[in-house]
């Protein structure tokens, strides 16, 4: 039998864990404004500050990254995939910014029933967090299906696991309370392909 005090301290530490995991993920999530009046979220992916977002958030050649203090940084869209609904942004800044690249986990390891957190800027509200579960484990190929509340503007943000590691980029809300995210397995392939392409360009030059 659990006493009320024990139960309370356990749920309090659970709540504290939740808050600190969300805080950690928030440091890697930015707001993105596309060139066609689109707006959403992005995840800082590399030390150099490359940002992953959805293609539908940044469909044009340029985008703006809006930091927590409201400052706007121009960015170029250096790679895009309409099929994956992914875009890569490279901020054009002279001074290094305190980027916090996200911790990333392979989505193929996700289990059905695991807790997940979505962090983004729905409807322009910053750093909003929602919690849900993995509805169907994605395996190596499928999108991450989650039971979680997402709203417009969550797109391009982070879907993270209970340790704060990003497992997907939320991009689609289906009718009936099902949300889909691009799995990190696909994001990593997208980024690796970019590096391969860049390397080829250099060889030719």
């Amino acid at each position, binding site marked *: 039998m659990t006493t009320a005090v024990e139960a309370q301290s356990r749920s309090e530490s659970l709540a504290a*864990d939740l808050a600190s995991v969300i805080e950690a993920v928030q440091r890697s999530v930015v707001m993105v404004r596309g060139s066609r009046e689109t707006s959403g979220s992005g995840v800082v992916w590399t030390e150099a500050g490359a940002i992953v977002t959805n293609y539908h958030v940044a469909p044009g050649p340029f985008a703006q990254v809006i930091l927590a203090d409201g400052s706007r940084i121009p960015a170029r869209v250096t790679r895009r995939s309409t099929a994956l609904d992914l875009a890569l942004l490279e901020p054009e800044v002279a001074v290094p910014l305190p980027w916090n690249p996200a911790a990333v986990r392979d989505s193929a390891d996700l289990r059905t029933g695991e807790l997940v957190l979505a962090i983004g800027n729905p409807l322009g509200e910053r750093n909003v967090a929602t919690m849900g579960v993995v509805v169907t484990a994605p395996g190596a190929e499928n999108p991450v299906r989650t039971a979680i509340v997402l709203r417009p503007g969550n797109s391009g943000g982070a879907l993270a696991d*209970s340790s704060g590691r990003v497992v997907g980029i939320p991009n689609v809300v289906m009718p*009936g309370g099902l949300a889909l995210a691009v799995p990190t397995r696909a994001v990593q392939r997208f980024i690796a392909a970019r590096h391969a392409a860049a390397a080829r360009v250099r060889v030719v030059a």
Partner: protein
Amino acid sequence: MSAEEHANLLAALSADLADAVERASQSVVGVDARRRVPGTGIVWPEGGIVVTADHVIERHDEISLVTSGGHRIGATLIGRDPGSDVAVLRPASAAGRPAELAPAESARVGSLALAIGRTASGATSASFGIISAVGGSWRSMRGGAIDSYLRADLTLYPGYSGGPIVDASGRVMGMNSSHLAGGQSVALPTAVVRGIVDALVAHGRIRRAYLGVTSRPIEVPDALREKAHVDQQTGLLLLNVEPGSPADRGGLFLGDVLLAVNDRPVTHPEALQAALGADLVGKHVTLRLLRGGEVRDLSVTPGERE
């Protein structure tokens, strides 16, 4: 401090939930017996049977189950009760591990809960929330008298009906139904399901007593209530008495106002249905009614509803 070092309880809870889904899913089958998305079923702890929702069974033959291992096996319908939305199937071979049931009445408002389904492709699927209400007896929208119910704030995706709602340890607390309350997520507690399942295994259906009347509530005027020494505000005006029915044979007429069945007041049609339990089939029942401004008692012998 990194998030990973700090997040011990949250990560442990997350792993527990995934474990609960994995454990419970071994007792969860897909039930393919309709044209739309298949339903879900629970491998019942006893009897080698599978329990599912009545409304996902739209055909009697060629019912197949999809096991947690992705195998497809045949099944036959043993019994069904549309009123409580429960059906029992007999699989051609073992359908999975018998489900572990949560202790009776362990579901409390605020308890963590997972709903589990099996997709058409055989994958396990789950949603998560809390028990938001534990309700007492009610009459479902499909006419069944149900002793208690669970309501949770989780999403029942298409095809989840007939599947389990489990606790954070993966033990079955109830059977999900999207049909009992007009599309809202409701679950029948396992104790309720067990009573229905036992009756279905024994008889193939749920016995209900039957009078053969159609009625609607009508206000009993104050003067008449005083005169007839009646407490209740409403009675049931009989709009139809089926020829040859128990009510007809017992001498009930169109226009009678039914007040009570065996001293149990009937103030609305659902109360009448609730009063007509299986135990009254073939027994003498005293009906109190108003006829011509007078109270009368009539003895009627209910039949069994087909």
